[in-house]
């Protein structure tokens, strides 16, 4: 395994870029002029105190804020150089390319198999049952869940434990072959052992997918990410190589947060 130092040395390879992004909920501004690059080969962590806008910003990356009627996004966000807020961008295809895992595991009340098959089915990725079986097995393997559930694929996804449910949700997101996976505090509802499994999984998925993880657990950010962005009051305070942020922060606010003065 690479050391923190070596991991950070991978060259930048921006998958998504945000330039001067503002987000408003009604009249209230939640995000103020955020510019950031999401790297293909590295895991990016968004940290910051509650209400700092890190989750809001994450949700602009696959336009989940569209479901909030009062939300309005300004500025430019691109995926492979293409503006995702352009009228020509189909939000359905965007979300197939930029998947998301939520804070609370939210498997559908269907079987484990059907949970994984859901995305491939709506995007027409497999027509024959045999093809679908392959996708389901591959996705569950990548999510590190196959060995635990291979004998009970027809049981309900909601009957799994919390950590298994969250890995099922990751597998569900992987099944549609996304390019980016957004994780919104994926471990905040899990116990330490389940959390460790998810973190291990993130390490394994790195490189295959661009991964962005929102977390308010700084140790977690240090463990799983190579790039860290510190948000405070809707602005991006500092963004850089994770080890630099944690050992040698440039901004006072970052240092205060990391050393536990507030948060």
């Amino acid at each position, binding site marked *: 395994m690479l050391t923190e130092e070596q991991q950070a040395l991978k060259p930048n390879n921006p998958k998504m870029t945000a330039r001067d992004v503002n987000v408003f909920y009604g009249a209230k501004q939640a995000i103020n002029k955020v510019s950031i690059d999401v790297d293909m080969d590295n895991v990016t962590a968004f940290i910051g105190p509650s209400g700092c806008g890190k989750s809001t910003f994450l949700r602009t990356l*696959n336009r*989940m804020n569209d*479901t909030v*009627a009062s939300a309005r996004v300004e500025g430019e966000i691109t995926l492979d150089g293409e503006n995702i807020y352009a009228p020509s961008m189909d939000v*359905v*295809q*965007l*979300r*197939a390319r930029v*998947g*998301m895992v*939520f804070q*609370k595991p*939210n*498997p*559908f*009340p*269907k079987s484990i198999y059907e949970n994984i098959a*859901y*995305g491939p089915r*709506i*995007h027409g990725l497999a027509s024959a049952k045999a093809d679908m079986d392959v996708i389901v097995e591959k996705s569950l393997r990548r999510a590190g869940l196959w060995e635990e559930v291979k004998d009970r694929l027809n049981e309900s996804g*909601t009957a799994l434990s919390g950590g298994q449910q969250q890995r099922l*949700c990751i597998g*569900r*997101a992987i099944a*549609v072959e996304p390019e980016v996976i957004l994780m919104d505090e994926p471990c905040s509802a899990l116990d330490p052992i389940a959390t460790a499994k998810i973190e291990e999984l993130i390490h394994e998925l790195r490189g295959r997918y661009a991964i962005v993880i929102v977390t308010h657990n700084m140790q977690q950010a240090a463990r799983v990410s190579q790039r860290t962005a510190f948000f405070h009051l809707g602005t991006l305070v500092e963004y850089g190589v994770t080890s630099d942020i944690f050992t040698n922060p440039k901004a006072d606010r970052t240092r205060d947060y990391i050393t536990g003065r507030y948060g």
Partner: protein
Amino acid sequence: MTGPAILLLLLGLGVAAWVSARARATRLQTAANAGPARGAMHSLPSYHGWYVALWTLVPALLFLAVWTNVMPGLVTESVLADPAAQSLPSDSFGRGAILSEARNIASGKQAMAFNPAAQALVEPYRAATSKFGTGGVVLALILAFAGGAFAFTRIRPDFRARTRVERLVMALLLGASLLAIVTTVGIVASLLWESLRFFSMVNPFEFLFGTKWSPQSAAMGFGNEGAFGAVPLFWGTIFIGAIIAMVVAIPLGLMSAIYLTQYARPNTRKWMKPILEVLAGVPTVVYGYFAALTIAPALRDFAVAVGISGASSESALAAGLVMGVMIIPFVSSMADDSIAAVPQAMRDGSLAMGATTSETIKRVLIPAALPGVVGGVLLAVSRAIGETMIVVMAAGLAANMTLNPFSSVTTVTTQIVQLLTGDQEFDSAKTLAAFALGLVLFIVTLLLNIVALRVVKKYREAYE
């Protein structure tokens, strides 16, 4: 002394008891708080007030309630003991007539007697009424004073007035809820009793499975054999309430619920949902008019124009369609609730996979909300088959077993109305059949409601 005056007097006594008891308890409280043991008074003064007031009122009122029921009997007995009553006829019918006439004159409901014997009894009646009336009032007042005095002497700092009052209030609340249950039990019992009488005349098997319904022929003396086969009624009820009405109500209700929860903007929802719910508040007789005067003739004309045979101006379709419209708000609001109860996370999860809104609705929301929707539909069916006004006005009386929605059918509720309206003797099979029909309807709707509530409850637990 008249009834309202006595009640007012007792109420006045109650108020006086409350005020004086509270005043006394307040003084005790002041004294107790001044003493070494602070807070030695168990209950607040107003609880002592209520305690004494209740002791003043409740026994006296209970006594009056009993007395008003017992008094007429006592009065009659004392009148019969009067010498003037010796000449009364011995048969109870003639005697009762004279007594009731005398009673009416005595109480001023009737100006003068037709029967001289009654005239002679007026005075004894007046005397007895006044004697027992005054006696009752005096007894009630004595009880009020005795109760009040007893309670008043119990006011002490350590007396637990609050506990007693709260216990009584609890008993009162329990009584209120028991009253509804007891009434229901009584209704069911009377339904059962009358149905049993019916089934002693008509074979239950024949009633439930017979296919010929002509209670009129039974009433005209052709015998009960084969006249009370209720299957055509059951079929008509199911055809209108559970088939035609649901074919209208389920898709429309479901679609409106989906629109309102998933597509409508908050402003649209704000005015549209109440309007939809107003539909549920329209009196069913108004729907009945609409069905009978507008829809039914239009359907008949249409059926005649396209050459459908058996078209009638009272059709199953007219009643069913209008009933379906009436049921829409039920289905829609139940479906609305169950779709809204599906967690937002479920919807987000699907949308984040790149599913469109309609895919999310079809594949995630509706399957998850289905048990709730099914429960809502069952409740709607149970309401539809018990619905009376629309079918009475629009469905007709002919007990046909037909699949043709343009022809006339009849339902259980229509026949109940038909059997019980007008001058009927209450011991013929024809009239009693209404109770048997009512019993069947009651059992079916009860079962539907139980199943529906079970389904809904089970589903609700799944997300909590």
